[in-house]
């Protein structure tokens, strides 16, 4: 992410704008509109959108989080009641646990896998376009469609995964589990499925791998480094800012998991609610139980968790991430 800047540009150069030239708003002026006015006019759609679709909702939900708000009646102030309720709400902790477990499995393993695949796809071999397309395409498949596909693959009796397990391990007496029908196997199934859509991270990693200066590898070759040492000591430090960015985005995404478990397992999250995620419970409170106050408190907790995790990731990576001058 290079941020070129153009501060040197055109100071002292006064373009001759004829009187009456049109300015962004189409007003007639004798002088050029000041740059700051023009600048703000250009970015004004973002400012309006931010105020109405981000700032306002965030502040509203902060207020609602201190109220009892059944949607059809006006909100009634209850102080910290909603936050206190969370502590003793078993479903809140269930979703918290499920979501944390999912993030703790899907993010690190997904990152390692994406890095490995990116490294493979950065080798000079024939057929790269094919390999890259095969890896990238699944990440574009709409979640509804991928939910349907994996529902079919994970099917306990007829699903391709269990057919394969039975064919290979059947003689040893191992049978494939009833993935989505068994509370123990729901989480592994969802994590496994998440690996299918690492394609976008892979593409970003490939681009960053190509930015690593070749001279560094030549030096490493002279030192007689093995490919693995080279990757750990040269490649990884050089691409670490990109990895950090991707890890943070992956954490944020995993806290928003909703569509896949909702479609595959239903709004309850399957047997034992093993696939019941934080956002699903937030959705339930807001739109099914008409408890907008509690849902808003959950939204704020989610926001703080995401900010906290991002901050922690930054801190933890301070020594590991190498920023080029």
């Amino acid at each position: 992410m290079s941020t070129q800047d153009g501060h040197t540009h055109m100071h002292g150069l006064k373009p001759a704008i004829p009187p009456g030239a049109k300015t962004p708003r189409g007003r007639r002026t004798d002088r050029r509109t000041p740059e700051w006015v023009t600048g703000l006019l250009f970015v004004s759609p973002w400012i309006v959108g931010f105020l109405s679709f981000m700032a306002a909702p965030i502040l509203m939900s902060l207020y609602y989080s201190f109220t009892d708000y059944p949607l059809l009646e006006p909100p009634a102030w209850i102080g910290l009641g909603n936050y206190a309720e969370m502590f003793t709400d078993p479903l809140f902790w269930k979703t918290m646990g499920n979501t944390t477990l999912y993030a703790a499995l899907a993010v690190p393993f997904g990152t390692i896998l994406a890095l490995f695949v990116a490294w493979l796809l950065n080798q000079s071999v024939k057929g790269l376009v094919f390999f890259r397309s095969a890896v990238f395409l699944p990440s574009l498949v709409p979640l509804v469609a991928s939910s349907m596909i994996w529902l079919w693959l994970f099917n306990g009796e007829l699903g391709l995964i269990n057919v394969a397990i039975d064919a290979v391990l059947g003689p040893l007496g191992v049978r494939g589990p009833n993935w989505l029908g068994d509370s123990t196997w729901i989480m592994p199934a969802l994590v496994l499925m998440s690996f299918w859509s690492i394609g976008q991270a892979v593409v970003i990693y490939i681009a960053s791998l190509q930015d690593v200066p070749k001279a560094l590898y030549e030096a490493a070759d002279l030192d007689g480094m093995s490919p693995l040492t080279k990757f750990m000591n040269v490649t990884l430090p050089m691409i670490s800012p990109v990895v950090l960015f991707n890890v943070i985005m992956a954490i944020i995404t995993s806290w928003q998991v909703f569509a896949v478990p909702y479609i595959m397992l239903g709004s309850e999250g399957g047997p034992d609610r093993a696939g019941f995620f934080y956002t699903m419970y937030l959705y339930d409170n807001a739109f099914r139980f008409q408890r907008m106050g509690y849902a808003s408190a959950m939204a704020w907790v989610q926001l703080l968790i995401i900010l906290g995790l991002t901050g922690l990731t930054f801190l933890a990576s301070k020594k590991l991430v190498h920023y080029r001058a």
Partner: protein
Amino acid sequence: MARGTDQGVLGRIAVYAVLVGISLLFALPLLWMLSTSLKPTEQTLANPPTLLPEPISIVPQQVVRNYIGELDADGEVIHRGVWTDPVVDFPLYLRNTLLVSFLAVGGMVISSALIAYGFARVQWRGRNAMFVFVLATMMIPFPVLMGPMFIIFRELGWIGTFRPLWVPAFFGTAFNIFLLRQFFLTIPRELDEAARIDGCSHWGIFWRIIVPLSKPALSVVALFHFIFMWNDFLGPLIFLNHRDQFTLALGLQLYQSQAGNVPWNLLMAASVLVVLPVVVLFFLTQRTFVEGIATQGLKE
């Protein structure tokens, strides 16, 4: 990077084998979806399953049965197919999705380009600080906003209309603004300055120089937002309240929520139809993108 010269033949073979294996694993779910979508129902229930529909010559007939469906003269269903299925109105949901996506993509491209221009080409105090702030908003997840947004849209009387899905697109999105700003920065400033000397305002420079030169980047934004709209599940789930307004993402889920007994071949045929446009767009834009950058002569 590692060019293979130092890796030896064995190393290269190993890399190849792993690449083939991984690509197959990634492609398999899509291929299995396609194969299942072409099978008659009995064959989807066979254990062990066959790799392809058997005999392969039934494929054309299966396309008609599973994808379109067969009705008799009175409109009674002989073979339930996606396009004519009475339960899930695929053509209607497709129309809804296209309408909403078209509006949202248009709004997103125009607004993100204007905003990105303000951050890339106009000098004003606080610009860089504000840009960092814009980037920081990428971290705010939609679930945090959805409750109050519902209330705002309810006050506006927009619940049950398409407006909550496309109006916000007219105010840009951090990621797209970022993408376009980075692209605009690569366009040589000499072009703007020449235009300025000729009496062009920022508005003129934006439309006459930046937009024509940025077609590849603009089409990437359009592609990304189209895929986002095509994919979006939570938004339509919250803001739409009538089956007639459903988008494909919601409509497809109706198959699943009918409590089982949906033939897998029908489900997979519907999935193929939803995945297909994305696949086609991917292959088309891959070319546009590469060509665009190559032919616009930006890197002289």
